[in-house]
């Protein structure tokens, strides 16, 4: 089948898609966006998290046909050209990346958290990231990165005001 959707702001078409493919597979193997990672393939680990119509979902559990006509934003769509999103920059600076496999999902999920809750408590961060597993168990640095990203956003909001 053929599916047409918006991906990172661009109208995207994938042809010859097999019904059993997931959105994750379509992104990685047909659209050429390998940022979203395929780890557990069953919604347990969050490494494949992308925005679907503005909400983060596990793209491994989205059937290709469900994406028809919808809007997808992947980790590749977070940066503005060469300028990293503040969440990405914070992960770099906090050293919140070890093997890196869980990072794209964490970036998207953190991006969404800070959009909805600019100053999350630690408990709120933990709940928001509960569906993103880091096999390297680098959670302390990840917490640092989310706190840093939140602080940066607050600073830049102040500058604008």
């Amino acid at each position, binding site marked *: 089948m053929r599916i047409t959707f918006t991906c990172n702001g661009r109208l995207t078409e994938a042809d010859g898609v097999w019904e059993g493919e997931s959105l994750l597979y379509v992104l990685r193997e047909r659209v050429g966006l390998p940022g979203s990672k395929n780890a557990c393939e069953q*919604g347990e680990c969050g490494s494949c998290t992308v925005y679907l119509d503005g909400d983060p979902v596990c793209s491994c559990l989205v059937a290709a046909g469900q994406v028809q006509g919808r809007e997808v934003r992947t980790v590749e769509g977070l940066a503005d050209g060469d300028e990293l999103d503040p969440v990405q920059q914070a992960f770099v600076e906090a050293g919140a990346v070890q093997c890196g496999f869980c990072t794209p999902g964490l970036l998207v999920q953190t991006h969404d958290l800070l959009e909805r809750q600019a100053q999350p408590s630690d408990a709120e961060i933990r*709940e928001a990231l509960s569906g993103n597993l880091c096999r390297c168990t680098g959670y302390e640095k990840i917490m640092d990165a989310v706190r840093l990203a939140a602080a940066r956003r607050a600073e830049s909001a102040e500058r604008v005001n």
Partner: protein
Amino acid sequence: MRAFEYAAARTPADAFARTTPRTAYLAGGTTLVDLMKLGVVEPDAVIDINGLGLRGIRLDRDGLRVGALERMSDVAEHPVVAAEFPVVAQALQASASPQIRNMASIGGNLLQRTRCGYFRDVATACNKRQPGSGCPAQTGANRGHAVFGTSASCVATHASDLAVALVALDARVELAGPAGRREVPLADFYRLPGDSPQVENDLRPGELVTAVAVPRLAFARRSTYLKVRDRQSYEFALVSVAAALDVRNGTVRDVRLAVGGVGTRPWRLPLAEQALRGKRLTEATARQAVEAGTADARPLAFNAFKPALLRRTAVRTLLALGG
């Protein structure tokens, strides 16, 4: 994954016309796609029902009505749900992960399949997946399994938190199918496994869940959902308690109590409710009522901790609501 056809239904009639015994409806997909990848469910065709509307979260004189295609996250965050039926909002918040809640529908949540490891592993026997093949959970790894409503064929736990909250509130499910519409109390919708655990609910061929209706209950404002699990988030219940309490001057006028993680279907505790009505709410009366209501628990080799954990959790929930 086995090959299948994919079709998006435009109207209910269109969806019904496409159904056969070998089709599956797809809403959020978080259960269906997962089980298809595992080979547990192998439909010939998948009918995407997301175009059918079935939305809306409304409170009126009769109560709350939620369209079956509303997503878990939207219902959990809805201010009316949180204010009037906190037990529902809390049960949803305590379910799955944010990503899954963003995708999964209310109807799909109620129809989700058990997390029994034997059901999900096609290399093992399972009467639910393959009728007559046997139930290794009877004597196998059954720490997460049920202590109420079990049979020699199946001891799998019903996994939905939402369903436990809704059963406590006497919710009804609205159904539509090729033969028309009807409405069923959610508590009756779910079947006990008996000797046919593959039949989990009252759905007739081609029928869809279209909405959930929760009757008005003023004291549901004082309700809560307490879930005990191996980790603080993103885990299924070992035991859970949904409770609503009408207490005046320390005396229980009315109460609703249902429990999860322990039953082959969401498990209401009518005897405990009855024992509490008219009593002063104290730790002793709560414990006596909960013990009376759970006396028929039948633990397995590895979940003998569940009845005691459940009783303590229920008492704690009641006292927290009453305080």
